[in-house]
């Protein structure tokens, strides 16, 4: 056996990486799968959130669009305030609030702020998806690193197993040429056994690295699919976030001015009405006072003349009333006599009437 053959047996190949065993490989794959399951679960969460957000945002933007379209129509017609009140009154999300008493600017701003919040949440979701996608691509890079290591080790193992097998063949040929019980034959046999051991050992490695490469590659494909799905989802969200954002930006610039302008007419009307009511009240009071004064001035002499007569007549009536009340109270104090008398009076009155 020449020097290089001895070297081959004495110095088996060095594999790169952390070393490998069936248990390690299983653990590795298990870890990667767990990570991937987490990511799939996260993706489900993202999808659910996206559906909710897209629905909510579509609602919010629909409302804004409806308002915006209405504003454009009404601006040209000139009936901004009343028209807006009408449209707000019809919108289900106003939830029966007393629209005629509300400020349009207030309602528009509340709507804008709600839409802005939805949009912001959607943009945050898009960024979280982008971060997840980046994490997945980092993961793919890491998997690629491991795949390359496995492939390199697989190649090393295959090359070594090939060489050792060639050596085994040469040794078996040499054994045939020697006498069976000679020392040389025993030495060659010992080397063949060592070679067989190395073949088994490194064939195992070859198989393990090949399996690792294959399984990691499969995991990588799944991760890649996941990353692509997330990327599609993100670009979907980005699409509506960008569109909604542009719309909202335009509306932000107009909303206060439009709202305030729509309110202004109502404000002036309310103010005018309020001041008119006040003026009317003042006028009525003034008119009442002056009319009363005129009446007194005109009638004061006659009143003074008649004062004595009024007084005499009034005293008489008061006296009669007082006497009657005293009688009735006395009867009431005596209990059922009052009822009897009442019934008698009623009967007499009935008789007279009929």
């Amino acid at each position, binding site marked *: 056996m020449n020097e290089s053959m001895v070297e081959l047996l004495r110095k088996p190949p060095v594999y790169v990486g952390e070393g490998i065993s069936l248990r390690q490989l299983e653990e590795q794959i298990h870890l990667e799968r767990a990570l991937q399951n987490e990511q799939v679960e996260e993706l489900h969460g993202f999808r659910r959130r996206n559906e909710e957000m897209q629905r909510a945002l579509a609602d919010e933007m629909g409302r804004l669009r409806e308002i915006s379209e209405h504003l454009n129509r009404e601006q040209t017609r000139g009936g901004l305030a009343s028209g807006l009140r009408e449209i707000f009154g019809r919108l289900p999300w106003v939830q029966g*609030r*007393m629209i005629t*008493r*509300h*400020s349009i*600017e*207030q309602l528009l*701003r509340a709507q*804008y*702020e709600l839409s*802005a*919040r939805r949009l*912001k*949440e959607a943009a*945050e979701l898009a*960024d*979280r998806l*982008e*971060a997840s*996608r*980046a*994490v997945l*691509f*980092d993961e793919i890079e890491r998997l690629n690193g491991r795949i390359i290591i496995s492939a390199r080790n697989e190649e090393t193992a295959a090359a070594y197993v090939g060489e050792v097998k060639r050596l085994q063949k040469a040794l078996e040929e040499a054994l045939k040429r020697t006498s069976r019980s000679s020392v040389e034959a025993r030495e060659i046999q010992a080397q063949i056994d060592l070679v067989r051991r190395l073949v088994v050992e490194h064939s195992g490695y070859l198989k393990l690295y090949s399996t690792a490469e294959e399984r990691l590659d499969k995991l990588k494909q799944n991760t890649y699919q996941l990353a692509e799905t997330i990327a599609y989802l993100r670009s979907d969200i980005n699409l509506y976030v960008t569109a909604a954002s542009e719309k909202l*930006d335009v509306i*932000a*610039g107009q*909303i*206060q*001015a439009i*709202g*305030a302008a729509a*309110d*202004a007419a*109502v*404000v*002036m009307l*309310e*103010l*005018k009405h*309020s*001041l*008119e*009511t*006040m*003026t009317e009240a*003042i006028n009525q009071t003034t008119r009442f006072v002056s009319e009363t004064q005129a009446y007194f001035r005109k009638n004061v002499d006659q009143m003074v003349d008649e004062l004595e007569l009024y007084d005499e007549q009034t005293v008489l009536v008061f006296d009669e009333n007082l006497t009657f009340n005293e009688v009735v109270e006395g009867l009431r104090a005596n209990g059922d006599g009052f009822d009897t008398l009442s019934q008698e009076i009623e009967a007499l009155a009935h008789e007279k009437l009929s």
Partner: protein
Amino acid sequence: MMLKGEAEAGYVNWFRGVLRAARLNSFYPDGRRLSAHVGAMSPAVHRGLYDGLQVHRVSGLPEYKEWARVQTDQQIAAEQLRQLGSRQVLEERVRASSAEIHQKQLAKHDYYSALVGMELSALDGMQVLLRRIEAERRVAHFQVVFDKLDAAGLFTRYTIELSQQASVWGRPAVVLNEETAAYTEEFKALIYKFSALDSELTFARLAGIDGLKVERVIKGTIGPFYRKGMDLASVAPEPVAAMLAGRPGGFVAMFAQDSSAVDVVNHQNNDPFGAFFAAGISAEIRRDCQLARERYGYRVYRERKFVVSRELVGEMQRFCGEMGTQNLVYGL
């Protein structure tokens, strides 16, 4: 007007400095909250998450959408922090990956953390405080404070002191529970709509409501703030545009306060720019206001104070003197 980078950071610092220098009393929107709100627009806080800061072309204050943006971000901050996860994990991702998004997510974590618990200005908040109750007359006295970023891009605070007679007729403006007072939506809407007008018109309008007796309406306004980059010739009063001409570092920030109250001794106008900012009210309504003054017995006092760049203090004081007013002018 869009400010970016250093200009954006410089504007935020300047704005906060102006608010500090203005020494605002409680009849103005809360300066501390306003300062925090504007502070959150600084790139140092949002860490480059936003392109820049849009400033209102007429008021010189940040645009409505910028105030609303900070408000929205604070509303979602706690939930976003929960979804972003731990800062340590985000940091590890930044170290391990070259993807820019990880840097962005880390910046968001820091931004939202800074926003949580921050006391911001309300863009339209109303508070009602019960001052006292006269049980025998069935009258409750309230103070109503209403803050709003108005359509002109200015921050305003209405402080209204009024009393309400309990009545079976009409709808109350304020509803009393055992210990608290709450405004009705109609009442808030009414103040909301009137926020573009002055205190007098609000006084006259409120005084006309059955069961309400108004004692005082004070309107404090923050802004406008005039400075470089604005089209001063078209948006600023002519004297201000003249003061700022050729002074690239110069600025004039205004803080108006107008009060209509039954305990003000005389009508007085101490606002040298009153005519410039007067609301466009018809002569007819102004005439009716005269009647309202007589009927409700209130008087109107208007004033305005200023924070200006140091070199403009003397000039502004001279201008006020020429207009026959005496105003506080702080230099910064």
